[in-house]
């Protein structure tokens, strides 16, 4: 893991726990070169309007405080995700499938949990080192900006800082509660 990767992770967690929802992304964008999103097919949403989950039995958390189908693009944590959902790939919403390596560089988004009304900071790490999962493709572009602003663009392959840059899937792990919403 490179120095910038460590900085990114440290910063992400610090931001996740200690800054407001509105300011966190702006801070990250300003301070860390190149923390951004995941590889994705930009037009996937046109092809599959509802993203992943179609025709599959739902994958649920089992707790009413974390509602929704983790195989569906509409699940609350996926508000800024882009790629194959690891929940459909042998991993979970917050862990990679066996045989892959989790990228140390992540794009973080802030998504509101409809059950408790809190805004959570979500880390969208890529899982790398196995071929494309190919299941549950999900692509949302709210807030996406051109590649000239890497921290706001989801077209880069962020399997960087891993042994292999081959992309498999993406997780959506809770790394904190945005401060203003936790109060």
């Amino acid at each position, binding site marked *: 893991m490179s120095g910038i990767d460590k900085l990114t992770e440290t910063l992400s967690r610090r931001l996740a726990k200690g800054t407001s929802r509105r300011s966190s992304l702006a801070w990250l964008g300003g301070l860390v070169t190149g923390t951004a999103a995941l*590889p*994705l*097919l930009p037009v996937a949403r046109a092809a599959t309007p509802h993203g992943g989950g179609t025709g599959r039995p739902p994958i649920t958390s089992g707790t009413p405080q974390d509602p929704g189908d983790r195989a569906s693009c509409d699940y609350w944590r996926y508000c800024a995700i882009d790629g194959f959902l690891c929940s459909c790939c042998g991993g979970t919403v917050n862990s990679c499938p066996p045989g892959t390596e989790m990228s140390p560089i992540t794009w973080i988004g802030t998504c509101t949990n409809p059950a408790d009304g809190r805004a959570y900071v979500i880390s969208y790490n890529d899982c790398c080192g196995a071929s494309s999962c190919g299941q549950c493709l999900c692509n949302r572009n709210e807030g996406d900006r*051109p*590649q000239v602003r890497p921290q706001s663009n989801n077209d*880069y392959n962020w399997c960087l800082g891993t042994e292999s840059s*081959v992309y498999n899937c993406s997780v959506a792990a809770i790394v904190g509660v945005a401060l203003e919403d936790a109060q």
Partner: protein
Amino acid sequence: MRLTHASIALGLMSLTPSTGAFAAESAQFAKPLPDEEIPSVQSLPAQYPKDWVLIQDFHFNALIDGRLAIVDTKSPDLPLKGTLRATQFANVLYSRTKNEIYTSETFYSRLTRGERTDAITIWNTATLQPKGEIILPGGKRQQSVTYTGVFQFTNAEKWALVANFTPAQSVTVVDLDGRKVLGEIDLPGCTHIYPTGSRGFSSLCADGSMISITLDEQGSVASSKTIASVQDIDKQPLFGMPAMVGRTAWFVSYYGELRGFDLSGNVARPTGSANVGTAPGGDPQWRPGGWQVISSDAKGLLYVLMSPHGREGSHKDGGTQVWVIDPATGTQVRRIDLEGMATSIAVTREDQPQLVIARPDGAIAVFDAATGKPLRDLGATVAFNPLVIMPAQ
């Protein structure tokens, strides 16, 4: 009945019924079908016709098996003329002067793992066989969804420029003819390569500026010039891939503003702006949408893929119409109904230009660019994820 040598051999394999079962049919056809010469491999014309296009297949379900499809847009029955390897977020260039295709790719020694090698492979356009390669140092070539600005020619196609992203940004200068890497230019904060002048390029930068760089004979920076405030990334962000009208690059913004840059000199020069115009039926409003959303024809008209469902985040969702704009007068010339969703568009340089579109399911359709009349549907027969369409001439 006289048996040929071949039919005896087949009979011995006991895979065919006895000849007696087809005695009546044999009487109908006095001579057997002739022997066919194998092995046999097709080849292509070294110069692809004007109605052919090269289509980059991102192949998201197996990125390590990305491809380039060579497509005859006038052949409804046999549109796919051949494919080339274009693995792992590859980029492609096509030289009409040298009859070569170049792929910029990343490999691992054990397919998904092992030693990483970045390389440019040089392919013969007629045989689609490799004829050379240039290893790119550092394992740093930019991997992203296909943008043309990641890999470009300069110096009259003698050289290529490769964008790097680790996420530190730089550009590797490659002597294609000499089969060697010349050097690397640090480019912090700037992205994509737009060939500029005779030997140089421009890039868009994160502060909203553009930088133009000229190169010396060794491939090092000879001069650079920043053009301030060419885009407002927050309020009027530009799609990364422009349409070229001669040496003028026309970019379109997420909201339909058009910006022209003359790249013929050593420094990019803003030439003006226009707007795609309006139309009824927006829900909530018409905006450009898709992946390759802007193209041009030989007359300098611009074609912009438009979505009626424009909103924040819709800019990659695809569109249902193409709006044709004359940037010289700033007028909307006509609108073309695509009879469904499209995600990428390109216009050929034929005497009667064709508008070639890719649909979300991978289907390719062809329209008359001048009238908007649908000409033919090639179906999903050439690529899984056709993201970038490059007319062959």
